């Protein structure tokens, strides 16, 4: 279909020494789609991004981006994509404006075009006042915004963002998300994103792919993923770790799909209205009393954890 801007088929990467980072993954991303690519550390997310962005050569498989073949036409692909990798890729000795201008020139813009684009972009990312300061002295959030501006110089059709909000304070994260959402909604830029902040992916992504041990284990829109889990979440908090451990030993007998975080237990069950009285009864028998109990639908975090822990779920 013509509206698929990223087509990935049987893509693999095996490093020297035999480590299989990515194993025969296949998926497509539609033009204008906001696609979130999730996975635990070492799952193969960054390797996939490096392959899709022409930085690393695949061991096998086929990739087509914006109609160009990854292996035969990497130069054409570079003209169509923008890439913000995990580290902010800037030269700290140059000013923000100089870096944007240079990027424009390297993409073949004239001096005047590069200057105009630099003015537009520093305004877009809110760096007009600081554009003529050495960017090595910018805060982390400002460097991230500059990185995004540099990435956008040549008006890419597809934007690859590898954990763009890592290390940013909450206010900077919100600002950056606003910029990214604007690019997607107002300019129709296709976004391919990896992030550790699943609640953010839940809010913005049209579709989510989850990779585990180099294989894609889920590929759906966030709501379908949550529905597919078909489970309710019962969350209980306890006054101490000791209390929580006692509760865990008791509850696991009737609800084995359980997670514990600090003094909290999350239990995933079908039909929570039937299971909850049972849980309360069994806790009372064990002389453990939760400080708080709540029932909710699973979040994308819950789906992610379930999928990662058990590929077959």
């Amino acid at each position: 279909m013509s509206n698929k801007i990223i087509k990935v088929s049987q893509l693999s990467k095996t490093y020297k020494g035999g480590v299989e980072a990515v194993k025969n993954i296949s998926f497509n991303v539609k033009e204008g789609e906001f696609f979130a690519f999730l996975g635990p550390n070492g799952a193969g997310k960054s390797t996939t991004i490096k392959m899709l962005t022409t930085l690393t050569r695949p061991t096998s498989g086929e990739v087509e981006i914006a109609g160009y073949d990854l292996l035969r036409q990497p130069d054409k692909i570079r003209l169509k994509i923008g890439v913000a990798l995990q580290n902010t890729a800037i030269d700290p000795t140059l000013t923000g404006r100089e870096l944007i201008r240079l990027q424009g020139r390297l993409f073949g813009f004239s001096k005047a075009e590069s200057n105009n684009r630099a003015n537009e972009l520093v305004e877009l990312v809110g760096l007009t006042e600081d554009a003529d300061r050495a960017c090595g002295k910018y805060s982390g959030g400002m460097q991230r915004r500059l990185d995004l501006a540099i990435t956008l110089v040549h008006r890419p059709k597809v934007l690859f963002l590898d954990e763009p909000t890592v290390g940013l304070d909450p206010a900077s994260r919100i600002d950056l998300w606003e910029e990214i959402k604007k690019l997607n909604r107002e300019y129709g830029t296709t976004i391919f994103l990896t992030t550790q902040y699943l609640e953010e992916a839940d809010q913005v992504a049209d579709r989510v792919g989850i990779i585990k041990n180099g294989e894609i284990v889920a590929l759906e829109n966030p709501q379908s993923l949550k529905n597919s889990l078909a489970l309710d979440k019962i969350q209980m908090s306890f006054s101490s770790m000791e209390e929580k451990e006692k509760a865990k030993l008791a509850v696991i007998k009737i609800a084995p799909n359980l997670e514990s975080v600090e003094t909290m237990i999350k239990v995933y069950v079908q039909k929570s209205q039937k299971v909850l009285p049972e849980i309360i009864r069994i806790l009372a028998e064990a002389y453990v009393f939760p400080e708080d109990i709540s029932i909710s639908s699973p979040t994308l975090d819950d789906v992610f954890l379930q999928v990662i822990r058990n590929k077959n779920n």
Partner: protein
Amino acid sequence: MKKTMLILDIILLTKRSLIGSIRNPFVYIPNFIMSLFFLFVYTAGVGAVTNLPTLEGVNYIAFILPVSVVSAAIGAATGAVETLVKDLESGYFARLLLTPTSRLAIVLGSIITGMIQLVLQSTLLIMIAMLMGVRIYSGIGGFMLILLLVTGLGLAFTGYAATVALVTKSSQAVQMSTMIFFPMLFLSTTFVPLDLIETSWLRIAAIINPTTYIFEGMRALLIRGWMPSHILYGFLVGFIGSVITITIATMNARRAFDGE
């Protein structure tokens, strides 16, 4: 959008590295002081060898000046590669790889900046030596050739250190790799001419050491005037070394992220 051109990209990336160097002078000033130190200390400490037969009547500053100039060249080359390492570490190198720019232009940008520093530092060192009484027997043409000879060595060394940087992406590995400078310097005709090296293994080491031919070429131009064979060997060593090492560095720039 215009089609990008190799020459324009090289100019743009060289300008960018030069701006970085100008804004951070502490990267190259210590290297220049070290080269100056070599000139003064070796002249004061070993200058008496001019009483030996082969060197009789030679101004020892002129004899040791190539060592000082080569030291400046190696320092400038190392500085150029450190820019490359910083780009690799900061991710800016990956950013450049993601542009349509040629990989050769990316590598050459920092290398040419290093060579500009090398030429400026070498010129200053030679001028200081001239103020100390050195006379270049081959004249202004010889002076230009001395700069070309040392640029050849600098390029070859930069290509070598850049390859280490691109393969390891580690500034520590680059620093360790530049230690090869010491055997290159001391297993050569650094302090005395080849004829006066009596220990046979040291003599063999000096003969197979490419630096010897750079020294000999420069010394011919400084002390004896136009000696075609010495000058030609010096250029051949610099040219062949540069072509080999820069080609390998550019090949590694293409696959810099393949092993990650």
